């Protein structure tokens, strides 16, 4: 994994989201340890969402279906959280939902950061 490229992923995210960006962190799914985090990142939240992803995967087995590229959680107040599971890693992005349109987040920002992250992982 290329750490410089990983940091560059965060920069892309901040640039694309502008004022709507709140915080972000990437953790390893196996032990919940933080790889990269921005200021104000809520590590506890990222860790519990790691458990939530496992919960979701199990829940979807009953459908039966598999989790795709992301899940998005609306949070009371002005925040929302986008969670992007990447196999051994999980990226959590907290945004100000009043400033970031969901369409922009899912159709523009998400594909860009998935590509950047995959590039960082294989480098």
């Amino acid at each position: 994994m290329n750490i410089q490229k990983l940091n560059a992923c965060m920069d892309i995210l901040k640039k694309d989201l502008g004022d709507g960006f709140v915080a972000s962190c990437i953790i390893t799914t196996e032990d919940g340890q933080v790889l990269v985090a921005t200021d104000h990142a809520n590590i506890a939240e990222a860790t519990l969402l790691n458990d939530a992803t496992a919960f979701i995967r199990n829940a979807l087995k009953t459908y039966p279906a598999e989790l795709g590229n992301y899940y998005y959680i609306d949070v009371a107040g002005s925040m929302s959280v986008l969670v992007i599971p990447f196999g051994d890693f999980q990226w959590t992005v907290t945004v100000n939902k009043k400033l970031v349109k969901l369409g922009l987040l899912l159709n523009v920002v998400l594909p860009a950061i998935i590509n950047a992250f995959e590039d960082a992982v294989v480098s």
Partner: protein
Amino acid sequence: MEGTAKRDLKLVQDGQKEGAPKSEAATRDELQRWPLFGLSVGSFLQVIAMEQQTCIMEVYHDADHWGQFCFVEGSLYDASCGALQGEEAAMEMIAWENVRLNIKQILNTSKVERKIEKNLMLLLMESTRRRDELKNGGPDGDMEDAEELDDIDDIEDLDVIADDVERAKLEACLNILAKDMGDALNTASISSIREGRIMASHKAPPQTAEAFLRLTHYLKNAFAANTSVHLGDHYIMDMKGGLTLVVLIFGEYQWCVVFDNTKCTLGLFRNVIMPKVVKTFNEMNL
């Protein structure tokens, strides 16, 4: 007929004379004018809605009770019955049984004004509720009512009745959703978060609805215990195979909707379907 529906809608174009037949002289011509008979209004309205018809449905109960419904592409736009107009006229006529009916085409809908915003399903249910209240002597009840209630000595019976009404309303909500989404809707369910049970479902595996109830509990508790924020009113999941799962939380109820995102985009769901679902759900007064 001189009701507002006729004046405003400018709808009758089949060349037949307007006006209700006189009960005393039900001539052969008049019977031909009302070719459908012995039906309940409610059941026929549902057929028109289901078939997405644009038409006027004239209803004749007796010489003093007749009126008409106006449908545009299966949605009830207006009704008139004597001095009553719109929703009140519809509510009056929905309760009629053994009526005679006639259907007329609407050739031009451009000037048709929508005066009924409520969904037909809600009107049908409201009508049923009013009829039940009437049978039981009104909403406040009377001595007979009280005596009848005394006869129901097991309070659990009342719970079951209330539960059935609630379930029927929720099933109606899902029917509206299924109608709006067509084949884009994969599955849907409504569960009670507090009671942890499924109240209504549309092709949804019960174990999945239960699993997502547990997930909501987990997220609620985990957010509350570990962060300063609280779970909001929905979460969205991208699923492999072009499916999207949306969980909506309305107070004590949780909706779990899975749809094909190649047939219905998330934007369409959030901006068109979801507001309608919320409106319908709120109108149910659960």
